[in-house]
């Protein structure tokens, strides 16, 4: 477990570094969303989750469900950094017969808890897992990361009701609130605000954080549940393309991948092995 937020920052940048190389090699992927979620995944995998790469299916593990499955890239990079899959396997991302599909598959990749890719699926599955733990009086927890645009899927709101109804204080929803979706800003496409109030109205305990501040993320995740008897919702304010100036907050980087030249500039910004970014 990493306790130093600065070390988490270094690791997150290393993950961004590997991620961009992987996306460039594959010529496919979701660059912007990968970069926006990198700090959240790094904090969870290196400081919060009770998981073991040597026993990825141990029954008492914490579950992490990536509902925004199109950001499989950052999940694979994180799983590789955490020792669930070999680092050099990242070179096979989206190649023929690779187990690293464009969207994660639990039957192929150790550490993946459920198959995602279609949006609005992760939260209901996470509720089922949290409910199973409650039925067994078990202490393991379930974390689920959704995109913000993804919340336009109605299934999330069915789930929002159920999580509060079942008092799932062992469930943590993290919303990657980068305010951009594939085509445009979320608020211009189908507005979501007041987002925190919506979750509160559904019976959740809500905290909003800077999704790139490792000290804040650490502190927030260590303090779940925020209230006993209520599911916790973390609205993580992030920037799509975080870490690379020309990608940051640009909708077109939703699923554009860096060319060789763009990669050179991006890696330069991130610093040697990703150890130097300031963004």
């Amino acid at each position: 477990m990493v306790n130093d937020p600065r070390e988490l920052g270094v690791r997150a940048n290393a993950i961004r570094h590997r991620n961009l190389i992987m996306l460039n090699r594959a010529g496919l992927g979701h660059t912007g969303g990968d970069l926006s979620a990198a700090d959240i995944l790094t904090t969870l995998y290196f400081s919060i989750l009770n998981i073991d790469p040597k026993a990825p299916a141990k029954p008492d593990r914490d579950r992490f469900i990536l509902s925004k499955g199109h950001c499989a890239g950052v999940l694979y990079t994180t799983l590789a950094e955490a020792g669930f899959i070999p680092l050099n396997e990242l070179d096979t991302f989206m190649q023929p017969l690779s187990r690293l599909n464009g969207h994660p598959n639990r039957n192929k990749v150790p550490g993946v808890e459920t198959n995602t890719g279609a949006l609005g699926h992760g939260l209901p599955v996470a509720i089922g897992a949290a409910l199973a733990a409650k039925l067994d009086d078990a202490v393991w927890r379930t974390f689920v990361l959704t995109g913000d645009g993804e919340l336009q899927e109605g299934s999330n709101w069915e789930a929002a009701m159920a999580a509060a109804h079942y008092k799932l204080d062992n469930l943590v929803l993290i919303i990657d609130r980068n305010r951009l979706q594939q085509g445009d800003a979320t608020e211009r496409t189908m507005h979501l605000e007041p987002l925190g109030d919506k979750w509160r109205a559904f019976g959740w305990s809500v905290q909003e954080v800077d999704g790139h501040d490792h000290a804040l993320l650490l502190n927030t995740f260590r303090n779940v549940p925020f209230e006993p008897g209520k599911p916790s919702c973390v609205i993580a304010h992030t920037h799509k393309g975080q870490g690379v100036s020309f990608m940051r907050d640009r909708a077109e980087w939703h699923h554009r991948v860096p060319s060789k030249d763009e990669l050179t500039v991006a890696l330069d910004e991130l610093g040697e092995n990703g150890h130097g970014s300031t963004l």
Partner: protein
Amino acid sequence: MAQLFDCRDAFANALVNLARTDCRIVTVVNDSIGSSKVANFGKEFPGRLVNVGIAEQNMVGIAAGLANGGKLPFVCAASCFLTGRALEQIKVDLAYSNANVKLCGMSSGLAYGELGPTHHSIEDLAWTRAIANMTVVVPADPIETEQAIYAAARFKGPMFLRISRMPVPIIHPADYQFEIGRAACLREGNDITLIANGTVVVRALEAAALLTERGVHARVLNMATVRPIDRDAIVEAATQTNGIVTLEEHTIYGGLGSAVAEVVVTTHPVPMRILGIPGVFAPTGSAPWLLDHFGLTPIAIRDAALELIEARQTA
């Protein structure tokens, strides 16, 4: 007139029996405790009856998560809403993830006849059997229903079971052993084969009895598992009886008849007749009336078989 039974009773009893010895079993419903007949389950295992309200997408996702957490969920909901409303969850959360969840499509087929096409579930077999990893089972009577539930609990992986509320007689012996993927031969015969499942198996048997009056000895197969289908039984029937009539309480597009035809045309082509709902939204009426309306009477089945035999002889 033989005594008629509601297969949901056998289903509910089997589920309670299983739950007594297998603490993994949970039942997930969408405000359908009464229509799924799981009130007794809830009385005996209150914590293990999860009612998600009227929210089928969430219901199937929750079931996948429960399986992820080590539970063995049986999801019970009206088949029309379970399969139709949550089809992508069935594909992604259950089948693609290979989640150990059993979907019980209650009141399937035309059981809600009078309520109209919103409540008819005559596409559920086509939808579920098109999805990789899915096992699809349609029991025909209370004995087979009970056996199928036990088999589902032993089977690891996603499964769809179609449970009717339409009263049916007992057609299997008490010691019948249901096996996933294996057809049951209910009547021997080498002139033609009738293949059915679910509520219309009894109609196939009645049609076979009528055929003997015309000197035609029909084989009757109960094809309870639609996927994986019993290829050997179908090839044997095609080879030995030279003609197949299928009947189902389902649209003829993509259901049992289609599944049988896929095997027949790629192995031993013989003439077939596929009886069922002919690709239309059904009018209102009771389930038995609708089955009669769509030509699933014993006489109409007999005539379809005779017509096939005649066509075969003149060909």
